[in-house]
């Protein structure tokens, strides 16, 4: 918006500058680089900024860069229709420069080809490489298509709000400069992840966001639990990353390219059900499991709540954790070629959705509930992808970003109000004390529970429809059950926090206060978003990316807002039998909320009774199905203990080094023994000589 204004102004004042600057090959780069610049400034001159009077400079700079990045994204969205013209211009300059260099331009077909609607647009100069050895070339190339655009908007949009929120939330933290620098760096890497035109570049963003996640989870590094959680997050993610990198390599060996577009092009030419494609898909999915906290690599996300709450909202709810979904969707054509891989994705997604939802039932930490909820919702998204509804998965990602960010920020507001208290058992009755927070939070809860016409309803509904369309009744059942559970635990959260009477100590009650406007503003905006973004029809918008059979009906020029469509009509598109679905889904959600009302408002004794009645089941849920226990045992006993006792002390020191030193010791021992032969008696010496003489004579005589 701002940019459009500037563009208009400039085009009036200095047309050449405007022409040079406002191009599709410039502005998205600007979106990418602004946060990086912000990070660099904050990191290098952090000391100087910290000495600023009001101490606001750092935060404002960080916010500014991200808001500008968002503006760039918006500009990009509004100008995507210019892609063709610009591509042609780019192509010609490129061909000219390449001809001058004497290279042949055959490898640049994606750029050289004629423009088609939704043909992905590659940014950057393909002759500047990040890595280039032999046949392996990885250019600094970005990819611009609807999917990227959606992700960019989410990342920079939600990111902006959370940056602003952080201004208030972190106002009193002595190290906010560091905080904002990390946040900026995260935004950069996340944008890189979604914009990267090839798998390695995507991987840079992938690991980069992981790194920022590590830094921000462990932001309060003095707390051991925080740094523990950071390590856990990074290492578990690394496991996934290993899968991702292996998948990347296998993809390169299979298709001869890292370029995402070229890979999807190449996949189209291959028959379905190839083992190698399944392998690639599954390896990449391991990466997705790590980043998006799917079973069995989900254990890091709940712990990640050790970080500041805005971080949880931005990284561990709205953006980074959805990277896995983005990646699977991005390579949707590849996955679509492998029924096995699709089944695995859907199965893992559904299982994660259900398991996480059940764990969320018994959590008492407000952020932990939200964390498990996130895991569960991510499972939902994978479920969507797994049944072939990639666009729906992205849709849910999109809506989820809003309401989950809202919920997290709302919980942050609650925690802020309670001076850091996170245990729901010590809350209650906050409805009136912090009404802004309550109302926005309630909207978020309704959205995630799937109450129409809020955002969550549309996306969730479409996922369920997708399972039906794919004829997967079991998955549908699981989805529905999860939806009910989701509604239940979210309502439980709402009731425990805002209903009843305050259960904390008196002093805490006294201190309860509504948050500043820097925090409430984003909350309100997000609430508006959560209520309304369901009407944006993202699936249709991104559909061309997945190269499914259905021809694209929409053009880029129509823009995002041109896709309002009723959910019922959308559901009808999936099949007539799904007409009942919205009602069932809504009913399920209401049922969940009703039960929660019963348990946590009406009959407060019931939960304990049920818990007591089914001890074992309760314990299983409390112990989160034992994943953490098992992993801890494996890591500390098996890996660390085994490495220490067996590999280091037994194998390395005792066996290998022992053999080395033993050789030395043995030689020394022989030597010490041998010196005793030198008795000092000269006749003994003579005798040895005589023996030698006899032996020599004998040798020469008889050995001839």
């Amino acid at each position, binding site marked *: 918006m701002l940019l459009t204004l500037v563009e208009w102004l400039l085009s009036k004042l200095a047309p050449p500058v405007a022409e040079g600057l406002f191009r599709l090959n410039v502005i998205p780069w600007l979106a990418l680089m602004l946060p990086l610049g912000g990070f660099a400034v904050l990191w290098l001159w952090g000391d100087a900024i910290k000495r600023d009077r009001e101490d606001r400079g750092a935060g404002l700079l960080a916010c500014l860069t991200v808001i500008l990045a968002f503006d760039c994204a918006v500009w990009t969205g509004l100008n995507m229709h210019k892609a063709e013209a610009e591509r042609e211009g780019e192509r010609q300059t490129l061909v000219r420069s390449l001809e001058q260099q004497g290279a042949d331009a055959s490898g640049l077909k994606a750029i050289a080809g004629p423009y088609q609607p939704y043909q992905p647009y590659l940014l950057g100069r393909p002759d500047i490489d990040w890595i280039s050895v032999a046949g392996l070339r990885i250019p600094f190339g970005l990819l611009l298509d609807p999917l990227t655009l959606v992700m960019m908007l989410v990342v920079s949009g939600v990111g902006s709000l959370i940056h602003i929120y952080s201004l208030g939330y972190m106002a009193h933290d002595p190290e906010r400069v560091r905080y904002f620098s990390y946040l900026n760096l995260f935004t950069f890497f996340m944008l890189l992840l979604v914009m990267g035109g090839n798998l390695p570049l995507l991987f840079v963003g992938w690991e980069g966001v992981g790194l920022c996640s590590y830094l921000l989870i462990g932001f309060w590094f003095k707390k051991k639990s925080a740094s523990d959680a950071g390590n856990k997050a990074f290492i578990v993610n690394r496991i996934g990353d290993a899968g991702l990198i292996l998948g990347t390599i296998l993809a390169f060996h299979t298709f001869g390219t890292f370029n995402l577009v070229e890979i999807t092009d190449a996949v189209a030419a291959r028959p379905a059900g190839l083992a190698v494609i399944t392998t690639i898909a599954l390896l990449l999915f391991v990466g997705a499991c790590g980043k998006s906290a799917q079973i069995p690599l989900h254990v890091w996300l709940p712990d990640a709540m050790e970080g500041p709450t805005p971080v949880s909202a931005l990284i561990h709810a709205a953006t980074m954790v959805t990277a896995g979904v983005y990646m699977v969707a991005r390579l949707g054509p590849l996955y679509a070629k492998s029924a096995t891989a699709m089944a695995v994705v859907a199965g893992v997604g559904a299982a994660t959705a259900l398991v996480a939802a059940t764990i969320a039932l018994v959590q008492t930490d407000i952020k932990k509930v939200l964390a498990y909820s996130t895991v569960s919702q991510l499972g939902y998204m994978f479920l969507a992808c797994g049944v072939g509804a990639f666009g729906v998965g992205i849709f849910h990602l999109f809506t989820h970003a809003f309401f989950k960010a809202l919920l997290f920020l709302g919980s942050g507001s609650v925690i802020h109000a309670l001076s850091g208290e996170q245990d729901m058992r010590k809350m209650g009755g906050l409805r009136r004390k912090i009404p802004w927070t309550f109302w926005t939070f309630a909207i978020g809860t309704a959205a995630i529970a799937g109450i129409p016409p809020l955002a969550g309803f549309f996306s969730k509904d479409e996922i369920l429809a997708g399972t039906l369309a794919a004829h997967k009744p079991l998955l549908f059942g699981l989805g529905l059950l999860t939806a009910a559970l989701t509604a239940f635990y979210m309502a439980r959260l709402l009731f425990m926090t805002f209903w009843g009477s305050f259960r904390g100590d008196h002093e805490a009650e006294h201190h309860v206060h509504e948050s500043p406007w820097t925090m409430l503003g984003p909350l309100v905006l997000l609430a508006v978003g959560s209520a309304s973004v369901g009407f944006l029809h993202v699936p249709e918008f991104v559909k061309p990316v997945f190269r499914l059979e259905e021809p694209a009906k929409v053009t880029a020029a129509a823009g995002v807002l041109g896709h309002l469509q009723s959910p019922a009509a959308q559901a009808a598109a999936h099949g007539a039998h799904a007409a009942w679905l919205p009602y069932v889904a809504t009913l399920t959600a209401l049922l969940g909320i009703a039960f929660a009302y019963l348990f946590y408002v009406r009959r407060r004794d019931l939960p304990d009774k049920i818990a007591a009645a089914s001890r074992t089941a309760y314990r299983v849920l409390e112990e989160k199905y034992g994943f953490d226990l098992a992993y801890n045992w494996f890591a500390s006993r098996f890996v660390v203990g085994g490495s220490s006792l067996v590999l280091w002390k037994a194998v390395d020191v005792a066996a290998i080094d022992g053999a080395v030193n033993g050789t030395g010791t043995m030689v020394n021992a022989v030597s010490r023994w041998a010196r005793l032969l030198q008795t000092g008696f000269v*006749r*003994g010496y003579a*005798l040895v000589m*005589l*023996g030698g*003489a*006899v032996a020599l*004579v*004998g040798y020469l*005589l008889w050995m001839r």
Partner: protein
Amino acid sequence: MIDTVVFYLFAALAVGSALVVVGQRNAMYSAFALIVTLGSLSAIFGLLGSPFIAALQVVVYAGAIMVLFLFVLMLLNVKREDSDATQSPGLRGAAILLGGALAFQVGVVLWGYRVTAPAGFDASTVQVARELFSARFLYVFEATSILILAALVGAVVLARRER
């Protein structure tokens, strides 16, 4: 024929006295026995047609070297060696064994090595002297003088009682 008899006579004498040299505890007796051995050898040299060497044997060996030995023996006043208490029997046994082995090996070879000696062999003093003073042995002669000088200096410096 007589030569042969005389040869074996002296040979027996030589071996016998050598046995005494080796088997005697009294160094004095050993020295005397050695003189006998040297004498017998002198005779055998004669029998082998080497009068010059035979004479030299008596003069240098028996006359000079052995006198030196006896002189030192008496100077140091050593008669018997010390008792056998510290003697290791292993050493002797091994020595005899190894000595036997050496003798056996060399003996076998020597026994098999037969060369007919040329008839006209002249090792008279004149002949030997001519050979001795030929250019071939010029160096050895000169060297011998240095050897004796070195031995002399060495003996003096070692045995001289000073300070």
